[in-house]
């Protein structure tokens, strides 16, 4: 009898769960941003608001925004027009876009690599396989080993669009399942080159990037990204179904306000404007 009671309680506890008395905000989307969003919700002063944070990828987040299963969608890429169109068809108005942070895409090489700067064009050629040897960009005579992000990530799409100019990656580019895996691999590989978020640079060297051969190359520091000198940077977004109201508005105002933007810096991304 006792055993049955315990079993019954466990099951009922598990299945019914708590009743939602407080307001719950669900945030879903980009895996790149999940660390940031999580930190925001941890730091948010109004503790009466409950948050439910999930990753899953920008595409997944946008899909759930369309399906209505999330309140806020975080995305590391701008919404595609097809997706915006779906939103409009379903809700009668386009979604609301909010820029919440900035990210610079760093180019990583091995610690011992002597390459200090690279142009965007060279970078594109390296990853499309046009340049295959380090000596063509000022290094020793050795084959370049490419490391890329997995093709489901917003980072991959961004890099492909803005650096490769929509050309295909060289087939020998190794698609690592996460930025950390890219960094880990390059830390081991003397001849590797890869890219990923500026927040992840332990154990590897960053390369300065310039727009043209003659222009100055910059590192993805806060200053260079904010004044637009670093050429590969992007915004990170929130998307909403409708104009923010009540708790949502308070949260979003806090996020793009001073305190929220400070959290952005803590996590390793960059604020949308100078603090």
């Amino acid at each position: 009898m006792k055993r049955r009671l315990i079993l019954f309680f466990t099951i009922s506890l598990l299945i019914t769960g708590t009743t939602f008395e407080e307001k719950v905000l669900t945030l879903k989307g980009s895996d790149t941003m999940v660390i940031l969003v999580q930190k925001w919700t941890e730091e948010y002063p109004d503790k009466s608001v409950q948050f439910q944070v999930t990753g899953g990828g920008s595409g997944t987040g946008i899909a759930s925004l369309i399906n209505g299963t999330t309140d806020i969608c975080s995305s590391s890429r701008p919404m595609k027009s097809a997706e915006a169109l779906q939103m409009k068809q379903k809700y009668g108005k386009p979604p609301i876009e909010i820029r919440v942070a900035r990210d610079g895409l760093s180019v990583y090489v091995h610690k011992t690599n002597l390459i200090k700067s690279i142009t965007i064009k060279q970078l594109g050629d390296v990853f499309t396989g046009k340049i295959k040897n380090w000596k063509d960009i000022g290094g020793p005579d050795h084959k370049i080993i490419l490391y890329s992000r997995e093709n489901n990530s917003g980072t991959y799409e961004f890099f492909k669009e803005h650096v490769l100019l929509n050309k295909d990656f060289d087939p020998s580019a190794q698609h690592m399942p996460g930025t950390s895996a890219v960094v880990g691999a390059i830390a081991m590989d003397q001849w590797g080159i890869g890219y990923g978020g500026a927040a992840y640079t332990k154990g590897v060297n960053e390369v300065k990037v310039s727009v043209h051969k003659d222009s100055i190359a910059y590192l993805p520091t806060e200053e260079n990204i904010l004044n637009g000198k670093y050429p590969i940077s992007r915004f990170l977004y929130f998307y909403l179904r409708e104009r923010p109201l009540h708790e949502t508005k308070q949260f979003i105002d806090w996020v793009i306000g001073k305190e929220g933007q400070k959290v952005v810096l803590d996590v390793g991304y960059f604020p949308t404007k100078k603090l």
Partner: protein
Amino acid sequence: MSSNSTLYKKSKFRPFEAIIEWIIRLTASFSIIIIFLIFIFIFKEAGGLIFGTAKELKPKKAVSEKVQDKSEEKVKPEIYNPETGEIVKIVEVKKLVKAKETESQSIWANLFSDTWQPVGKKPKYGIQPLLIGTFKVTLVSLLFATPLSILAAIYCAFFAKAWIRDIIKPTVEVLAGFPSVVLGFFCLVTVVQGVYSTTQFLQPLCTNIADIISWILPFSDRWIHSALTISDFHYSAVVGGIGLGLAVIPIIFTISEDALSAVPNSYREASLALGATESETAFKVMLPAALPGVVAAILLGIGRAFGETMIALMATGNAALFSWNIFHPVRTLAATIGSETGEVQWGSLHYNILFFLGILLFLVSFIINALTELFVKKYLSKKFQGA
């Protein structure tokens, strides 16, 4: 082999009993139903590709592109807070280098081409590199796992003392208990370095092996040399193959050990009585006698290696490279599904194609299983019925 069903004699008809029996029969058919459902639903989700109904396949004319452009201009998200920083257009050159318009090819030609670049303006869904990659990794894992586990099984079944057997068998069971993600992680951080530093020393040896093989099979000369040239890649079919091998070893070992132990002892006694040594008996009498079971073990091992996802995803480098070199990174079918399905837009052509890859995996596992059933049925039924 006698079934318990023969025990119960037909007695008078009882409705309750009959209902129960039918409920149990119905539940038992669940496994068959599930197989059918897997088949149906994976086909259904791949339907956009197979029946050509995917959105991406329909608008082939330029007209539709215009429509798309229009919608792009029309529907833009509203921006909530316009004063958030100046927008730095990153690359203005973008417009200049427009992706070249190549002739739109049929999706099936696309599917069997040699480039896998599913994301982008002009997605390429060539599955050739994935097939080669899967094949290479499976091959390496079998080369690693089969001799090791069959030899160990022979040792266990014929040479080992009882207490040694009691050490070896549970140890291998321990390996079977390793979740594949753990093995994948192990390969990602440890095996990679080991393999890399070892292979750098082994290049001359590999060239020699290639020389020997090409001497035996002259027509394979170029192919075998390219397949055995050590590359500068860290992640490769070899690393992944070792990881998969670790996952496969328990399967091959356990099943072939069972098969070897099941050979009647009279075989062994007869062979020894005829003057054969212990090792001759093991290799020339017992092993052939247990061959169906051993083949079943290898087949099941192939099935496991072929469809394993996490290890392949973490340790093989995931480059869809069209190459026969086992020291090159590879991208397997399962790893492709595993990494791309999570974020793909549900219902898109890419999604359909990932399910199509799923069909391939399912069919291969189905065929492997059917083969095991057909050719080694006797052995298997013996094992499963505990006779």
